[in-house]
Structure formats: structure tokens, C-alpha cells
């Protein structure tokens, strides 16, 4: 059994972080350069962490599987980033951002972590503006805000529909600067394939160069994973095609606990699936819900009709009807499930019946077509490119899609996992969003972790490690880890079966979406737990990975990732099955109120489930970290 000590500082909520910063140990400036830190991943969290630690004086090595750090999928976030600046004078505060996030997460996040996140949110905006992030501004030259789901204040900062891009490029510029100064050693096209644990501490990684196939060992005093989420378990998602769980999954297999893997976010406004060949679902920013109204036909017979011919009286604006105070800006999990229910009733739009309308005709009447174009033009263009339909003329069709994973490696308040020396940042950890993430909070978390949390907390760990004590890469643990990696590659290349990797990924995605998607049942999850081990076996027996391991081989890369996804999918189903309640992104049909809302069981499940690997053929251990709510009362989430 792993020990899960959350290390939450004592004292009043608002003082915890301040107090902790005073209490934790420091490494003196002259000693910092004697410590080497490995950062895996270079999205918002990874880039900001690597550059910040390098600026402090640590020696940093950063590994990224992309050809450039700027490709990380943080780049695709559209809508914005929250911060408790209260520039709108509408009553925002650190406490309100904290409260909205805790409530949005359906009371399954840690209070102390979320409060810290809200506290540093304002610093993030300052930092990004100083780096030259061109946030939207008002005519007076000051920063503009928009509103986002799950909040009744306007606290979202944005850069057109490309906020994630601009924030990532800001972090990338800081990383580039430190690389140029020789403070960070950057390795691109370098995928982490194993974690090296020496005497119980994370002390290195095994890397495969994706271009040459070379496998190398890298030692360090601490390892930071900032490798993003695992939504591609579902195959079809809004994730980038290459987004993967390999780094966190291999760390899990080396002893790091995986927390709440079943918490997956389904985003309500994505472009519906159009065929089997599809590789990707495209998100339409939540910001569209500021002005667009979501509806479905009242009558089943109208479902296949041209929406423009359906009269106002026959339209059901179901979010406005069900959640009058938040209306179309209800949180993502709530809005997604409402759309699913409508489609399950047979009222879904489009050929597949899996879609509801997002209608801008009211907004066009109010603002004019140009007014709408000014706010959302690029999103309407995206919709038009993909569907060849104009959102100005006909209502857009949207359907929920997998978008984010709240679960991830378990970390304490210092963002360190149960394996000492292994830190996990951003979407890769589980800490801040509970069972559901609010819009514009992922960017906030990634940058908070990288710029303002890890620079303090990594020092606390390193101060306890003797400078220069990191192991040599000739240590037995490095050799074993490298052999594990080369063995896996050999096995994939040697199978010489028939089917391409994508075949198994599609099948995995279907099993997961059907049984562990927006609505989950005991029977469904149990059947998935039958199917997945069989799929895993079939995969290893019949996959065809052409080519060799000593050149660029995208099939080989994909094989490793899909193998991990299949195993992780199994753990997600196991987690979903054992969590006998509904909360946020985890909806068990057995546990719902008569109106279809989530029915939590705080008594039995007001905790974090952190799974511990025991070997592939053994059931993992479910460790529990109780969520002791001291300041907020866990209550029924109400957006009505």
C-alpha cells in the first residue's frame, strides 16, 4: 500500500500557501547549479517549469516528443484563462474563483490546492502580459474579459479564439530564451519511455530519439512530468493525434499512483462525427455559448428536418429550460449530459441523430452578422471548413466529445507523487479540477504549476538530497529500464501480425465511449473489463508494426502509445466501476436524481481513489485519500 500524505499545510485556507512558502526548505543559489532536473513535456506546464527552474539556477534538461516545444497541445485551447483580477468590478475575488472551481469540480478536488490556484491566477496574467502575450484589450488599452461556463462573473482573459496558442508561445519564448542562454538542454523528438527509480526515488528517464531510434539514459536529482492528459484512450477526442499517456503510464508501472482515472471531461460543443475514417473531433469554443442558444426539436418527427423550417414553438431550448440561472453557460458536464439525454430521446439532429443545434439567429438579429463575425468569425470559419455549412445561415450542429481528463498521477500539495522526486504538473496530475473542470481553468492550472508552484516545491525536495548524489547512468536500475524499453520495441516489431495499430485504437475507443463515456453502468463497465484484456492480448498477438526501430517509425511510436492506452482504459473502467456514485464527469446511471442530475455519495466516495500497480495480471490496489473539506460544505451542485 502506498502512503498518500497530501502534506496540506495547517491553518486558515487563505494562509496555507503563504505559510507553506515560508516553511519549506530552500536550496542556496550557489548550490542550485549542482542539481539537475529533468522536465518531460513542454506544454504550458513543462515549458513554464523548465524556464523558471533554469532561471533560478538549476540545471535543466527538457524532453519533448514533438519536433518543437511549440507544438504541445496546450496550443489548441481556444477560449481563455481565468484569473481573479476583478477588473470588471463584478464581485470577483480569489475566494469566488476558488469556490466556483471547487463547486465546478463537484466537490472532488482538494480545497488547499484549488485555493492556491485561485491565489496565483492573478500573477499568471501579470507574467504573461510581461512576456508579450497579446490578450484582448479595450479601447482604453486595458485588458478585456469575457464570461465562461460555470461562473457568474467575467474573469476570463483571452486572445481571440487562440488563447492557448498565445499562452503556450509565451511559455515557449521563455523556454527558448533559457535554451539560448545555455540554461536548459532541450531535446526534441525525444519520447520518454520509462522512469528510472533508484532506492525508491525517481532519478532518471529512458528516452527514445524518434528520428534515429537511439535509446538513451538520463539521470537527474528530480524528474518532472508535464505530459498532458490521456483522452486519446477514446481514440476520437479533441486531443491532438499524438497526445499520449505513455510517460504517466510508465511512471504508474514504476509505482506512482494513478488518481481518479475515470474522471473524463466531455465537452458539449464539438462538431459531430461524420464517418468511420474520422481521426479527430474539433471543438467549437465554449465562448460560443455566450451568444449562441442551444436547442433541439421538441418533436422526434422534426429531428431530420431542415432546422430553419422548425418553428420557434417547436424548439426546445433545453439548457435555458433546465438551468434558467446559468442557461447556455451551464458547466460542461451538465450541458453535455443534457444534450445526450435529448439525443437519447430520439430528438437529435443530423443524419446520425447525434447532434443538437447551436443557433446564432438571435445574436445575428441583435448584433448583426458582422457583429457575430467579429466575435467568433474564426470559429464559424472552422465550422464551415469541416462541414461545408454556414453557421450564419443554418444553426450549427454540435455534439459532446472527450476533451480533458481530470484524473492523472496522484500528487501531494507540493505536486510530488508518491514516488519521491517525481513531480507531476498540469493535466498529467489529478489535483485541481476534481470531477469536472470549468472552462478556462486548464491554462490557469498549467501555468500556475509551472511558474508559481514547482519553483518553490522542487527546492523543498532537493534540499533533502545531497548535491551530486544522483546515480550514474550505469546503475543497474538504468540498465533494467533500458532493457524494458528495447524489449518492448523488439516485441512490437517482431509480432509481424496483420492489423495496423489504428485498428486496435479504434476498437478501444469504441469500447471506452460505449461503456466508459458520458454515461456509465455497472453492466457496461463489467463488459468493458471483459473486452479490454482480450483486446490487449489480440493487440500483442496480431498487430503489424512495419519498418525498423532505428529510424523514424510512426507505427512503432503509435504501437507503444496504444498498448498503454489499452491498459489505462482498463484502469479507467475499474475506477468507474468502483466509484458507486455520480460526480462531475463521472456519471453512473444507477446514481442519479429523478431529473437526471448527478447523485453524489459524499459519505462513501468523498475521497480520491489512487490506484497502485501490482503487475499486469494482478488487480491494482485502490488507495484512498480522504478529502477533508474544512471550509466549504459539500452540497448538491445546483445551476438552476
Amino acid at each position, binding site marked *: 500500500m502506498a502512503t498518500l500524505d497530501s502534506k496540506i499545510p495547517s491553518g486558515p485556507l487563505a494562509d496555507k500557501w503563504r505559510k507553506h512558502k515560508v516553511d519549506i526548505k530552500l536550496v542556496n543559489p550557489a548550490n542550485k547549479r549542482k542539481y539537475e532536473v529533468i522536465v518531460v513535456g513542454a506544454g504550458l506546464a513543462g515549458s513554464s517549469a523548465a524556464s523558471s527552474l533554469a532561471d533560478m539556477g538549476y540545471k535543466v534538461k527538457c524532453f519533448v516528443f514533438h519536433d518543437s516545444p511549440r507544438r504541445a497541445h496546450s496550443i489548441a485551447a481556444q477560449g481563455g484563462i481565468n484569473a481573479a483580477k476583478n477588473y470588471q468590478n463584478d464581485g470577483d475575488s480569489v475566494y469566488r474563483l476558488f469556490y466556483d472551481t471547487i463547486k465546478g469540480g463537484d466537490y472532488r478536488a482538494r480545497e488547499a490546492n484549488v485555493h492556491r490556484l485561485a491565489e496565483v491566477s492573478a500573477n499568471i496574467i501579470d507574467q*504573461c*502580459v510581461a512576456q508579450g502575450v497579446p490578450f484582448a484589450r479595450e479601447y482604453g488599452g486595458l485588458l478585456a474579459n469575457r464570461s465562461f461556463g460555470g461562473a457568474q462573473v467575467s474573469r476570463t482573459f483571452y486572445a481571440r479564439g*487562440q488563447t492557448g496558442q498565445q499562452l503556450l508561445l509565451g511559455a515557449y519564448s521563455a523556454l527558448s530564451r533559457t535554451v539560448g542562454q545555455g540554461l536548459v538542454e532541450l531535446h526534441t523528438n525525444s519520447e520518454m519511455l520509462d522512469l528510472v527509480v533508484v532506492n525508491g526515488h525517481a532519478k532518471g528517464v529512458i528516452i527514445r530519439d524518434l528520428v534515429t531510434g537511439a535509446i538513451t539514459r538520463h539521470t537527474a536529482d528530480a524528474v518532472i512530468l508535464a505530459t498532458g492528459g490521456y483522452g486519446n484512450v477514446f481514440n476520437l477526442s479533441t486531443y*491532438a493525434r499524438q497526445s499520449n499517456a505513455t510517460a504517466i503510464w510508465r511512471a504508474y508501472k514504476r509505482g506512482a499512483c494513478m488518481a481518479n482515472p475515470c474522471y473524463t471531461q466531455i465537452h458539449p460543443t464539438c462538431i459531430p462525427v461524420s464517418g468511420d475514417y474520422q481521426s479527430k473531433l474539433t471543438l467549437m469554443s465554449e465562448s460560443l455559448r455566450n451568444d449562441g442558444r442551444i436547442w433541439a426539436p421538441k418533436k422526434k418527427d422534426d429531428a431530420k428536418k431542415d432546422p430553419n423550417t422548425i418553428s420557434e414553438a417547436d424548439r426546445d431550448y433545453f439548457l435555458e429550460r433546465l438551468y434558467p440561472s446559468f442557461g447556455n453557460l451551464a458547466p460542461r458536464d451538465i450541458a453535455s449530459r443534457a444534450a445526450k439525454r435529448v439525443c437519447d430521446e430520439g430528438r437529435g439532429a443530423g443524419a446520425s441523430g447525434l447532434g443538437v443545434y447551436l443557433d446564432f439567429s438571435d445574436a445575428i438579429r441583435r448584433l448583426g452578422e458582422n457583429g457575430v463575425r467579429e466575435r467568433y468569425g474564426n470559429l464559424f470559419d472552422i465550422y464551415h471548413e469541416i462541414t461545408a455549412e454556414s453557421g450564419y445561415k443554418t444553426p450549427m450542429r454540435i455534439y459532446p466529445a472527450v476533451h480533458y481528463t481530470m484524473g492523472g498521477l496522484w500528487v501531494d500539495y507540493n505536486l510530488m507523487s508518491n514516488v519521491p522526486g517525481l513531480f507531476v504538473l498540469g493535466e498529467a496530475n489529478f489535483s485541481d479540477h476534481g470531477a469536472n473542470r470549468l472552462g478556462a481553468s486548464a491554462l490557469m492550472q498549467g501555468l500556475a504549476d509551472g511558474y508559481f508552484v514547482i519553483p518553490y516545491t522542487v527546492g523543498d525536495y532537493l534540499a533533502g538530497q545531497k548535491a551530486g548524489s544522483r546515480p550514474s547512468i550505469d546503475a543497474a536500475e538504468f540498465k533494467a529500464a533500458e532493457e524494458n524499453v528495447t524489449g518492448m520495441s523488439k516485441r512490437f516489431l517482431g509480432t509481424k501480425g496483420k492489423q495496423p495499430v489504428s485498428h486496435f485504437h479504434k476498437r478501444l475507443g469504441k469500447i471506452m465511449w460505449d461503456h466508459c463515456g458520458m454515461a456509465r453502468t455497472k453492466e457496461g463497465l463489467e463488459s468493458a473489463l471483459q473486452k479490454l484484456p482480450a483486446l490487449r492480448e489480440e493487440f500483442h498477438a496480431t498487430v503489424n508494426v*512495419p519498418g525498423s526501430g532505428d529510424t523514424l517509425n510512426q507505427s512503432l511510436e503509435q504501437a507503444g502509445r496504444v498498448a498503454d492506452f489499452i491498459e489505462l482504459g482498463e484502469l479507467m473502467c475499474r475506477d468507474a466501476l468502483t466509484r458507486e456514485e455520480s460526480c462531475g464527469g463521472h456519471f453512473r446511471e444507477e446514481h442519479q436524481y429523478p431529473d437526471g442530475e448527478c447523485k453524489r455519495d459524499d459519505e462513501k466516495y468523498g475521497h480520491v481513489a489512487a490506484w497502485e500497480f501490482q503487475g499486469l495480471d494482478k488487480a491494482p490496489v485502490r488507495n484512498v485519500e480522504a478529502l477533508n473539506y474544512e471550509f466549504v460544505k459539500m452540497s448538491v451542485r445546483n445551476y438552476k
Partner: protein
Amino acid sequence: MTLRVWRQAGPKALGQFKDYAAKDLNSNMSFLEMLDVVNDELTLKGEVPIAFAHDCREGICGTCSLTINGKPHGPGKGIATCQTYMRSFHDGDIIVVEPFRAAAFPLIKDLVVDRTSFDKIMQAGGFITARAGSAPEANAAPVPKGVSDLAMDAAQCIGCGACVAACKNASAMLFVSAKVGHLGLLPQGQAERDRRVLAMVHTMDEEGFGNCTNQYECSAACPKTISHDFIARMNRDYLGATLRSAFQPEAASSDGGGA
């Protein structure tokens, strides 16, 4: 449809075009999804699939490249290859698919090229030095909306390299000028403005990119339609920075010292 694809096993291998029949296509399929289908068929037949770079598939990460019928990112305007749909082509078409070609983008395999040279340019000066913790209050310095919007136009660059691929001189001027323009327009970027443009242009030259001959193929191929006006702005900045660095007095010492 016939695909005529550039196949090259490695940087030193000899490359050549190879034809593939693409069947059972759907007009709602993206170009990359079509390649996925072709690759799955190749794998089923036991052949090595076509290597091509891709990731987000929504036109923002800048990973996808491909020169389709001679135009980087295919026939559309203001979109990347991943946003190109098969409805842009007709039955019976021969589609020629090549990598982005430029000496500064050495080929890795098939359609994948190495764009590290872009990162090197950014590392030379594509930033504002502002370490975490040192930033002033965000609203302390207003930025006129027009200036901020113009900076955003430039900042949209996705670093894909289409500008280089489209330029007959393989010049990186649009890419470099977008970053020089973005940061140089903002008040925060003024302190390092001269250093930035000199350093970035120097590295651009070192990396072996060509020169601008003002044909503007770059902005026409740019998936974010970044204007070549930023190139003019960079030229002006470079001229100013060169003159200032030659004639402005320098402090005798820039060190700290003291007890």
C-alpha cells in the same frame, strides 16, 4: 484519385515519387484522414506506411506540412493541410504530395522535414526577458487596442514553415518578421527591440535561409494569412537597429560588482 507521393527512406537515401490509388474516399474526409486510410491499407499489405508530420489536426500546432500540387498546405487559403478536405479535389485527380523543401529544413523521412532551424531563431531572440515572479501588474501599462490587435495578427504564426516552403528563395523572413513584429509592437518588447531583430536576423542567415525578393508567396501560402507588411516593418527595424548599434554610446561597464 491517384496520389503521387514523395518517398524517401532517410536523409541520405534517394527519393522518388510513387503512385498510390486512393479509393473509397468521402468528401468530408480531411486530407490527413485520407493519408491515414492509405497508410492502413499499406500496412495491411505489409508495406511501410508513408511518414507525414501531423498532430492537432485543427490548424494550430503547425506540425503538419505537405506541399500539395505545388502549394504548401494545399489549395485552400488561410488553412493548414489538416484543415484541407477531400471536397477540394475531384475524382480522377492526380494529387502530387511533396515535403516542404528548403535547405534549412533537411528531410528526415518521406514527407517529414526537420524545422529545428526555426527554434534556433527563436532561441536567439524571439522573447521578452521576464522571469517568473518579476512581472508588474498587468494593467499598469495600457496598450492601445489597435497596437495590441496588430501584434496579435503577427503572433498568430504557427511556425509551420509554409512561408519558407512557398518562397522560391526558401526565405524565413515572414516567420522571423512575425515574431519581431509581434514583440516589437508592444511596449513590453521595447527594451530588447534592437537586440532582438539583430540577433534573429543573424541566426536566420546562419541557418541558411534565403533572402526576400518581395514576391509575397509566403503570405499567400500562410495558413494564418500573416501579412508581408511585417517583413517591411522588420526591414525598417533592422535598419534602425543597425544604425543605433553603430552610433549610440555604450556604458563603460554593465557589471554589478560591489561588496
